[in-house]
């Protein structure tokens, strides 16, 4: 919001003036009405490890983050470039593996990735698209440029908060929007449905699309039902589906109805107990064979996890160069790979300065923040890295920009990131804005909702 010299950046001027007209009491009262609104509508996530299945409201900060049109254009171009390369990469590693043969990426990195599915090599997916829905985490660096922190190419969540935050802001702070020129986020559900329909097997017209959820005990269940409702498609659980003769059907009051496209919010491991985890009660026996027979399409496709592996991440810039012959528009964070002997030496010598991440964890788990860690924690990670170098990467501590955030009635800077949502179908749609997550604890850079993070509305402005 503020430039380096402490002045309010131009595109925040209007917001600043309007916030200044509100008294503290008025603001407090509006915050309370926002919280009530979320609670009443059940916009909550389930806290794991709590026996009563407590639902919490995702903390929401009412001071919006604003991104001017030209800044957004760069992000958008960068994301389109990145998803294009990632989808080409996935096609390649599941077919000829040219990028490995050309030694642009070391073969062992890919073949040893936990989420690489060799059994899907040479299985075609509709339209050759693997990642249909991607949530790419960005941070804004000291000099104002955006860096990619990670790609979430499996089952990224959070988009429902983007849509609900906007709805709530419009209801409680309508005057902030007046003539601010904020781009709408309303088209997301229609774009998502269009993306799903586009990948129907054999380009079938009017395909039956469903959303597959692990069930209402899942922490993101609200989002699943929200999206299904917005798209007007059925939300199904594994037990609602059955595979007969290589086709997938849902059990309805009138009999079995064929399903063509499944937007699954279930990780690969749980999809089909016949193929992946045998103990999965959430999946559908036979689903994988139906996918392989080309009778049903999955979004995202099976095996995309190899692209959001944190070791693969280190090679995305090279991928862009290799497949597109372009320079990456969005830079990323320098990454040291523990499996590489030289890098590993560096990591082990510099642990107190580095952030160490497990290659396949998400949600802020399995992470060491060197400068804040105790000696014992550092030694634990040293052991972990030595025991399984393939599973760890390290990065310098990156700067997360701060944004004015309401904390106990006063406005203070808190660290934020940004997760834009990218849809790849007939064309690539990028939701203007995305989820701005904010670390509500002072000084913290962990923005995950499971660990004390909140969110903000994100405003992308029209070109003035």
């Amino acid at each position, binding site marked *: 919001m503020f430039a380096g010299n402490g002045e309010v950046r131009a595109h925040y001027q209007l917001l600043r003036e309007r916030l200044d007209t509100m008294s503290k009491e008025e603001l407090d009262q509006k915050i309370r009405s926002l919280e009530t609104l979320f*609670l*009443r*509508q*059940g916009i909550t996530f389930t806290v794991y490890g709590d026996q009563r299945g407590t639902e919490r409201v995702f903390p929401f900060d009412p001071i919006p983050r604003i991104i001017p049109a030209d800044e957004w254009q760069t992000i958008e171009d960068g994301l389109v470039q990145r998803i294009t390369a990632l989808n080409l990469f996935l096609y390649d590693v599941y077919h000829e593996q040219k990028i490995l043969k050309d030694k642009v990426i070391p073969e062992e990195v890919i073949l040893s990735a936990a989420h690489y599915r060799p059994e899907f090599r040479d299985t075609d997916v509709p339209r050759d698209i693997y990642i249909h829905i991607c949530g790419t985490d960005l941070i804004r660096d000291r000099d104002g440029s955006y860096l990619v922190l990670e790609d979430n190419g499996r089952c990224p969540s959070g988009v429902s908060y983007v849509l609900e935050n906007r709805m709530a802001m419009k209801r409680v702070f309508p005057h902030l929007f007046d003539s601010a020129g904020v781009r709408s986020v309303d088209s997301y559900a229609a774009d998502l449905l269009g993306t799903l329909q586009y990948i129907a097997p054999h380009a079938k017209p009017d395909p*039956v699309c469903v959303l597959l959820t692990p*069930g*209402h005990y899942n922490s993101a*269940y609200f989002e699943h*039902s*929200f999206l*299904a*409702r917005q798209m007007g498609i*059925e*939300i*199904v*659980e594994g*037990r*609602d589906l*059955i595979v*007969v003769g290589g086709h997938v*059907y*849902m*059990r*309805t*009051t*009138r*009999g*079995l*109805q*064929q399903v063509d496209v499944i937007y699954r919010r279930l990780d690969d491991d749980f999809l089909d107990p016949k193929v992946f985890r045998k103990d999965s009660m959430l999946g559908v026996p036979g689903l994988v064979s139906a996918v392989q027979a080309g009778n049903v399409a999955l979004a995202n496709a099976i095996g995309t996890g190899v692209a959001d592996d944190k070791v693969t991440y280190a090679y995305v810039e090279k991928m862009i160069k290799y497949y597109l012959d372009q320079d990456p528009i969005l830079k990323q964070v320098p990454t040291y790979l523990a499996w590489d002997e030289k890098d590993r030496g560096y990591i082990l010598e510099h642990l107190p300065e580095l952030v160490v991440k497990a290659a396949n964890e998400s949600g802020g788990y399995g992470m060491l923040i060197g400068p804040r860690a105790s000696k014992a924690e550092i030694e634990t990670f040293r052991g972990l890295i030595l025991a399984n170098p393939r599973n760890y990467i390290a990065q310098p501590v990156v700067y997360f920009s701060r944004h004015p955030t309401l904390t106990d009635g006063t406005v203070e800077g808190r660290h934020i990131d940004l997760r834009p949502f990218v849809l790849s179908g007939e064309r690539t749609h990028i939701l203007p804005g995305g989820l701005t997550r904010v670390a509500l604890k002072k000084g913290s850079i962990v923005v995950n909702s499971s660990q004390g993070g909140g969110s903000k509305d994100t405003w992308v402005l029209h070109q003035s």
Partner: protein
Amino acid sequence: MLSRVADNLYWMARFMERAENLARLLQASNELLLDGATFGSRSFNDYWDPVLTATAMEDQFRTLYPSGTVADVGYFMTLHEGNPDSITMCLRLARENARTVRDQISDEMWTELNDLYLFITAPDTLSYFQRSPQSIYDRIINGSLLFHGITDATMARTEGWQFIQLGKHLERADKTSRFLDIRVHSAQSGHSLDSIQWASILRSASAFGTYRQEVGGEPVAEGVIDLLVFSTVFPRSIRYCVQCIDINLHAISGSSPGTYSNAAERLAGRLLATLNFGGSSEVLDRGLQEYMDDIQQVLNNIGQCIFETYVLLPQDAQSVTFVPSTEPQQLRWKELQAQQQQQQ
């Protein structure tokens, strides 16, 4: 519609209706207790046992409260989370069912149901309950009525709506029959029913006002039975509810009125015929309790048959019908509407 979703909608409505009926029963019973003078020396057991028996909560209560008091019964039936049939637990189940089918119901329905749940589980509800149980019951009754009203006003008349109506009417018919049962149990303990007790039954079914208009005079057995069992105009009478069930079932299956295409329709049609051609004298000749037991049994069977016809997931795929994927949803809609119009 998904079988599981149909089941969730049906139970959402049943549990909501159950909570409302329990609230009304407890409210009417509390009022009756205030007329304590007429009971003379009757003990707690004479008074509350029939309520616990008719709602099938007696054993549960005795386990939790070996020497129960009036206040215990109220808390036990209203807020106790160890009682799977308490109002709180009914509302929790209604909400759980609604939560899994949020995409199928309107936002307004969800918000009202969620509000009611947040109200009954709020930390200060217990002290509020101790000070003013009647206002808790008011809130629950109003919440449920509002929920059903919102459902009527905001939900499309799709198959899902029919399943909601089925759940509501089955539960309502069952509860009305049990209210009649309660005082039969009282009567068996050696006391004949007086008009105050008949009035309490009418209040439990929100029927006192209607009784005065439609029947008139002091409440007596024949009049109460004619209204609560056989009325064609009172929306909580058993006959009225069964009529609705019959219509809902035909709307779902698409079979013509007066015929049947599955066991649930056959049972509902036969029960309706019995009620259409019955009357209070027949009930009293045969015995109110026996008559009510039979009705409850048939209602149970109808519920079971609905489950078997529409929900029970076929385990072997040979025995099921395939829906042609080209069948336009729109067409089914129009058929349903046409049937509804015919029936109304």
